[in-house]
């Protein structure tokens, strides 16, 4: 049974980074450098995002003797998910202004 845990702060960070330029394909190492995550943390996050359908992957053909490289970018569902995320540090304030509860990451994660 698959659990619908809310995304970690690191996963949200990865999502936001990918959403900054959603059309662009990213390399794993560049992404890890950009979000300041070690590969041991990044890849499990990428796997989970892909399992949830938030991330699409592709292969860049081999260049010379260099091996093929995996590429990542958000799917449409991933973009919508990030768009529905509250802005960092403004979530509580916005919720109080609106007088209603914002959808929690857990709900969004389950719907994804």
């Amino acid at each position, binding site marked *: 049974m698959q659990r619908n845990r809310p995304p970690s702060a690191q996963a949200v960070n990865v999502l936001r980074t990918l959403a900054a330029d959603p059309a662009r394909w990213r390399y794993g190492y560049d992404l890890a450098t950009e979000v300041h995550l*070690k590969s*041991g*943390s990044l*890849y*499990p996050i990428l796997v989970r995002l892909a399992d949830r359908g938030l991330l699409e992957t592709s292969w860049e053909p*081999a260049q010379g003797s260099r*091996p093929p490289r995996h590429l990542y970018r958000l799917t449409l569902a991933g973009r919508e998910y990030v768009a529905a995320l509250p802005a960092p540090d403004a979530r509580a304030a916005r919720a109080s202004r609106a007088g209603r509860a914002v959808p929690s990451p857990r709900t969004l994660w389950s719907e994804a």
Partner: protein
Amino acid sequence: MAIFICLLCLIGMVVVWFRGSAQVAPADPAARDDVLVRLLRWAVSLLSAQREEWGQAMLGELGHIDGRVRRWRFAAGCVSAALLLPPWGRAAAAVWAMVAVAVGSVGLYAFVGVRYGLQAWDWVFAAVALVLLVSYTLGASVLLRSPRVALPGLLGGLLAALIWLAPGYTFYDVITSVTPQWVGLVQVIVVPLLVGVAGALWGGSAMAGRRIAQLAAFSAALFVFLYGTLAVVAIGARGPGDPGCTGSCNIGDRLGNNTTFYLWCLPLWTAALGWAAAAYTARVRSRPATSAVPVSFTAAGGVIAGTRDPMTVPEMTRPEATGRAVRVRNGRRTARRVLLWAVVTIIVVLIFAAWLWAPSR
């Protein structure tokens, strides 16, 4: 003195092993097949089938990273991710069972040690036992997730455990029975060879056979050691012992024997001979077929199995890497490893012999 020399030899062997693993001869630096790639390839090969693509992604990314430190950091992270990445499926239950067996053994050992007041030398054995138990549990937990390894490995472990306990299955027999010579031969020769051959046939390759033999060795060692420790707890200081050795001396002696036989000899013999048997079996089996089979590689060096979908995981063919060259290279590497294992096994036996006949005992 002899023990220290043997230990030095052992350390030397490990150093030689790692230096051998680090040897690379790439014509193109970009296509390097260094120790990091090998390490990551090993970790990736343990991923479940549905995660294979992610393993290839890690290997591919590593092939594009320059700089020794950056490569090391990236590879280390990927190895840890590959080893822990779910799904674990049914393997999780087996891993927890292994952990329970190991924790149970440690708990019983500590209980007996405190109750009977073991001597300093016996606590050295306890420390060795603890390190080995942790190592085997970790090793088994990794192997259990490997495709087509868990079931034959556990069955092999069950067979090895039953044969090692064959001289007597009751607690009293475990403590006191003397192993007949022919049973000893079955334990250290026949069973490991059987496990290795069956593993290679079941898994379809030398690598699978080696892993099956290793899992059999680890699981048998963990189970038999727990049973042996239980026997020591149940029998206590009663029963025959060495002349002039009573009470805590008897207990320490029995626990030391358990550690030596069940945590050193059993897994070493089973893994080493099983590995050799698996390598030989795979070699004999592959001989008639290899000439007709084209060999393709991932750029990172991994052989792509014929069952993998080329549309989902890219592959490229190295024209210069013919099947024969690969076979020779793999054969040499396997032969070197088997030889090293054999030497390590002999050294461990020598350490045990030196300990047995040490004048101070």
